[in-house]
């Protein structure tokens, strides 16, 4: 341990105290002495002071000349006998570099060890020493700031080395200071002033004391912090003015000054020092301190720096809390926003708030605007321990409790601020429970304060959070709770939006799936992006096969050209369009008709717009429509025919009557006339002769023989015409029977009238041959069967027309009707083009047609099949050979009375008609 170090030891203090008590402060004296003394005298004074302070027999002071590394003995004090310095012969002694460095650091060197190094000086001393009683020498450097200024050599008893060194250390420091002033250093006063000025502006409290602990200086901050005035306390002991307590223990420190001492203090470390003010208030502080040393390193006082940590602590706490809040909020935000669809968001909110607030009961309610109800959805903070639960005095389940907040309450909740209420006020939320339960809850959990905060989103109330605080607890971080609730609102809103969106999405999906209409979406370049279930069902290709493919290149079994043209037109014009009766074939092979509505989908970013195609299968409807139209047509034709028949029958009646009369009259007239003329010819009477000439001349003139043959024939033919006309009128009336009821008809007659009506259809392309059994009675709706037969006959005529074309040739239609078991079978044979085998039964499908577009809707045979197979329990079919002809056959059940012979009737003979 170096002698120059300032040790807060009891010994040195007592030494100082002792010196002070002697009335003279050698140190102060020395300083004063040195202030004005010339160098050599100063050395002399120093030597003397050292001699006095050290109580050594002899003290020598040698100044060091750094330029030459030499020591010059300047002064000797004490026992002159030992060493009387000779002023004239003052010798310079070389001081080795190592020793210089050693001394410059202020290290003491004892003579024995340094004898070699100290060279001549020590040699001189030793010479002296030879005569002295003392056996040892102590060399102490006077150094400042690493510069060796001088050395002091003491003759000491071996056991006194240390005590001497201690005793003289302050003097040496002062000496060093004094000796160095000539180097242009500031004076102590200057430095003090500077220090004071500096300290004034510091925000730390700085208290400077002297070596005795008296307050020398106190900067304004310190005055403020401690709560005293500088002039009141200066000169007082610091320990009387400043009290520092250990916050942990509440114990005051013995000595404030010691706080300043660095390093291994003997005192236990103070964990949390607090400044206690005269008014007993405390503040956390940080204490630092430093001794004030003189140039010699001697302690001249203490500098204490007190820093009030209150603000910092607060800031720290705020910082920490902020960090924690931030972590909590971000975590909770993640939790809330990433909450799975099945997790209960309300639970999460309740638990999140509970986690944050700590001790409370948290109720989270959802607001149902349409019912104006707050419904408690989650609760957190109630003990779930069974014992406590069992003891819970309320019966209503807390979750699910409902209340209707008043308008004012809703308004209050809508502000979104945390409202503090007393439970007794029972604002809003408490009413989610019955009054009884609420009281029980408050009592059980010692609820004194309740907080209420609305969960709002853009001015609408989504729900509320109620915090029930135990005892007198309060929320110390309301902003965070508010922020959290805002997050909850966001999450709730998002959840609601998501649910609504999902609901809409699901709904849309269901709608898309459920609509019987085809929905095909095309993007701007004609690729399919939507292909719904109806499209799958009606058109065949599956959705995953179609999505993303260009429509134009897809094999869709419909009239692609027409559809594509419509799509192109729709896109080009940007106008909705419709195309009707688009033929298509369904996956089951049936032909159908479709109605397509095309709507352009305007695109923002591209010049080509997409197209939405909505298609409905119109087959069934068209069938119904045509059936209805057909029925209406039949009915109106029937009415018309009846009217026409009546109108024609009346003139036919009298035309025929008159013709018959004329026929008879002509017959009578001619017969009588010719007979009379003959008589006249045979007459011999001359007068008759003359008359006969006249008659014969007239006879010749009118060509009587011609009239005689032609007139009856003319009348006969006229009568034939009337008969045929009457037949056609009758057939027409019979054919178009308006009655829709089932009756027994004679099939042969029905065929005859049908053929009569259809005559115009076939007569130019075919001859008709009938081979009809007369007594085929079938029970049927005559109008419909007639129509069905007509359709078959017309179809046969068309088939022949297609074959004979423009050639002018004629084909043949043969219709036969006969019994086949219990059936009446009609065969309509034509010599037409025939039906290709691959077409097969498609001929009976509605809207199947081989005719050109517009020539017919392909309804004829479909209608025939419907009437015969579905409505009359019959059968219909055909046999065909392409290029040769087709035979359509129809079987209808015979009327019951004609069916299989009964026991009493041998029917075999009856067939022979």
């Amino acid at each position: 341990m170096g002698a120059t170090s300032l040790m807060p030891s009891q010994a040195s203090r007592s030494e100082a105290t002792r010196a002070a008590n002697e009335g003279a402060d050698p140190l102060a004296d020395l300083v004063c002495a040195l202030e004005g003394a010339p160098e050599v005298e100063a050395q002399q004074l120093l030597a003397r002071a050292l001699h006095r302070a050290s109580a050594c027999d002899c003290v020598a002071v040698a100044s060091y000349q750094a330029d030459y590394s030499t020591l010059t003995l300047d002064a000797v004090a004490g026992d002159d006998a030992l060493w009387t310095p000779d002023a004239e012969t003052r010798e310079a002694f070389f001081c080795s570099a190592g020793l210089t460095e050693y001394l410059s650091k202020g290290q003491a060197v004892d003579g024995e060890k340094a004898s070699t190094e100290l060279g001549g000086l020590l040699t001189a001393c030793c010479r002296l020493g030879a005569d002295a009683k003392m056996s040892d020498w102590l060399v102490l450097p006077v150094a400042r700031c690493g510069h060796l200024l001088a050395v002091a050599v003491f003759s000491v008893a071996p056991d006194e080395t240390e005590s001497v060194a201690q005793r003289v250390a302050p003097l040496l420091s002062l000496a060093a200071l004094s000796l160095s002033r000539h180097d242009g250093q500031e004076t102590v006063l200057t430095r003090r002033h500077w220090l004071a000025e500096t300290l004034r502006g510091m925000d730390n409290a700085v208290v400077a004391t002297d070596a005795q602990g008296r307050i020398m200086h106190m900067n304004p901050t310190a005055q403020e912090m401690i709560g005293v005035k500088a002039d009141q306390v200066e000169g007082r002991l610091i320990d009387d003015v400043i009290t520092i307590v250990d916050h942990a223990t509440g114990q005051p420190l013995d000595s404030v000054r010691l706080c300043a001492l660095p390093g291994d203090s003997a005192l236990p470390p103070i964990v949390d020092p607090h400044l206690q003010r005269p008014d007993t208030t405390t503040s956390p502080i940080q204490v630092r301190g430093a001794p004030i040393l003189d140039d010699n390193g001697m302690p001249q006082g203490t500098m204490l720096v007190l820093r009030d940590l209150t603000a910092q602590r607060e800031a720290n706490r705020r910082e920490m809390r902020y960090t924690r809040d931030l972590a909590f909020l971000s975590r909770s935000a993640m939790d809330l926003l990433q909450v799975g669809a099945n997790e209960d968001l309300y639970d999460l909110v309740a638990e999140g708030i509970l986690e944050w607030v700590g001790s409370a009961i948290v109720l989270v309610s959802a607001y149902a605007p349409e019912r104006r109800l707050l419904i408690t959805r989650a609760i957190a903070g109630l003990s779930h321990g069974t014992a406590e639960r069992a003891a819970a005095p309320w019966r209503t389940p807390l979750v699910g409790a409902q209340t209707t907040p008043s308008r004012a309450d809703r308004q209050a909740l809508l502000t979104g601020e945390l409202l503090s209420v007393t439970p007794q006020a029972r604002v809003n939320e408490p009413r989610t429970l019955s009054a009884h339960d609420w009281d029980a809850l408050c009592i059980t959990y010692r609820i004194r304060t309740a907080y209420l905060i609305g969960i709002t989103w853009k001015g609408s109330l989504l729900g509320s959070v109620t915090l029930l605080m135990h005892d007198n607890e309060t929320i110390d971080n309301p902003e965070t709770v508010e922020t959290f609730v805002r997050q909850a609102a966001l999450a709730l809103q998002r959840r609601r939006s998501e649910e609504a969106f999902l609901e809409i999405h699901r709904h849309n999906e269901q709608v898309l799936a459920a609509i019987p209409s085809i929905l095909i979406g095309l993007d701007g370049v004609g690729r399919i992006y939507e292909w719904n279930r109806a499209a799958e069902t009606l058109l065949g290709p599956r959705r995953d096969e179609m999505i993303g493919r260009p429509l134009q290149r897809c094999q869709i079994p419909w009239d692609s050209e027409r559809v594509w043209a419509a799509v192109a037109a729709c896109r080009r014009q940007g106008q909705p369009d419709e195309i009707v009766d688009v033929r298509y074939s369904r996956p089951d092979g049936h032909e159908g008709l479709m109605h397509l509505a095309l709507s352009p989908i305007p695109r923002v970013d591209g010049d080509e717009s997409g197209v939405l195609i909505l298609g409905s299968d119109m087959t069934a409807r068209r069938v119904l429509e045509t059936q209805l139209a057909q029925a209406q047509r039949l009915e109106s034709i029937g009415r018309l025919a009846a009217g026409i028949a009546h109108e024609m029958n009346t003139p036919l009646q009298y035309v025929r009557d008159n013709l018959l009369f004329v026929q008879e009259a002509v017959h009578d007239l001619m017969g009588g006339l010719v007979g009379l003329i003959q008589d006249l010819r045979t007459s011999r009477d001359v007068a008759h002769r003359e008359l006969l000439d006249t008659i014969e001349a007239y006879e010749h003139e009118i060509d009587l023989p011609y009239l005689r043959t032609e007139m009856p024939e003319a009348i006969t033919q006229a009568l034939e015409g009337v008969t045929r006309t009457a037949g056609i009128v009758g057939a027409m009336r019979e054919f178009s029977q308006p009655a829709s009821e089932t009756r027994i008809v004679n099939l042969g007659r029905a065929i005859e009238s049908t053929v009569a009506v259809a005559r115009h259809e076939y007569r130019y392309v075919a001859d008709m041959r009938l081979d009809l059994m007369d007594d085929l009675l079938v029970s049927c709706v005559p109008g419909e069967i007639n129509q069905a037969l007509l359709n078959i006959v017309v179809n046969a005529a068309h088939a022949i027309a297609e074959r004979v074309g423009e050639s002018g040739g004629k084909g043949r239609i043969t219709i036969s009707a006969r019994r086949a078991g219990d059936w009446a079978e009609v065969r309509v044979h034509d010599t037409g083009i025939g039906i290709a085998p691959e077409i097969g039964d498609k001929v009976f499908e509605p809207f199947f047609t081989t005719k050109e577009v517009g020539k017919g809707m392909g309804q004829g045979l479909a209608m025939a099949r419907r009437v015969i197979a579905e409505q009359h329990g019959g059968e219909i079919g055909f046999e065909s050979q392409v290029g040769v002809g087709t035979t359509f056959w129809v079987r209808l059940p015979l009327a019951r009375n004609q069916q299989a012979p009964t026991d009493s009737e041998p029917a075999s003979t009856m067939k022979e008609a």
Partner: protein
Amino acid sequence: MADKHRVVFVDDEPRILSGLRRALRSLHHDWDMVFAPGGQEALEALESACPDVLVTDMRMPVVDGCALLRAARERCAQTVRLALSGHADRRMVIDAAAAAHQYLSKPCDTDSLKNALQKAAASSQLLPVPALRAFVAQVPGPPVLPNTKQALVAVLEEGTADIDTVAHIVAGDLGLSAKVLHLVHSGFSGTTPNVCTPQEATAVLGIEMLRAMAHNCDVINVGQDLTTECPKTQRWTEHSQRIAERAMALAMERGLDTTHVHQAYTAGLLHDVGQLLLVQFLGDRSGAIGDLVANGLSLSEAERQVAGATHAQVGAYLLSIWGFPLPIVRAVTCHDTPFGTGQDADGILQILSEAMQASDRTNPDPSSYRVARS
């Protein structure tokens, strides 16, 4: 002049009348023909003298055919009433069926018309009792059992009535069977399909026609008096059906054509239809016939003594004014005087007789309508 038959033609179209006059010129020797250009004029003609035959258009202004036919039925009961119309309107047909004996469709060829006139004029000779003639010509048909009418109405009230059920009811009543056959055979159904049984005839007419019939009180002659005779009447029906089927089978055995087979059946079915009319005509007096038969008189004789004519004559007269084919009328006329005729060119009478004999053998007591007042 007194020998001449008298016919009144009625039409609002004068050319029809003049056409008829010209076409029927050949009849003017035997017929006194009156042409009335409207219903009113016809009524006046009826006032002056009842014609043998009335031929009227149906649709006419002021007094239409129906009204005229009904007036004729009241005023000139013995006049045979024919409708001649170009209409097939169901309601009009049913109205006509209530008051006309036959329905001729325009255009009607002259031969058919002449034939109808001749047959109608000759009918009176089949039944020499004017009162009976008047009665038969006035009623719309043989009496029908009230039960049958009720059953028919009940079935037709149901919306879902099916033709088989209706036909079954019809066939179960001889009077109604006769009426249905009348409508089919006498031109009321428009077409004349080749049918013979009452079931077929019903099916040919169709449900709607039957419904219209059931709802028109004039079309069906409900025999209120027959209630007490009900079991017997049903036995007549069954008896008639047996004979009809037997006759039909016989006709087929002989290889007759369909027309004659049907005629045989019809003759068999309707041969006793006169009994129904006689019972209704005589009312309480019909019991006397039974008494006489019980005393050993033949049925024909008994009928003649009580009513002045036999049921065969009554039935034949009815079928004749209805325009049924001559062979049927002839067979019905003579069926109770077996082998009394040599005119049976068609053999229908022969067949009928054989069928009746066969029936007599299997069922020795042929059912009869006569109720002995014991």
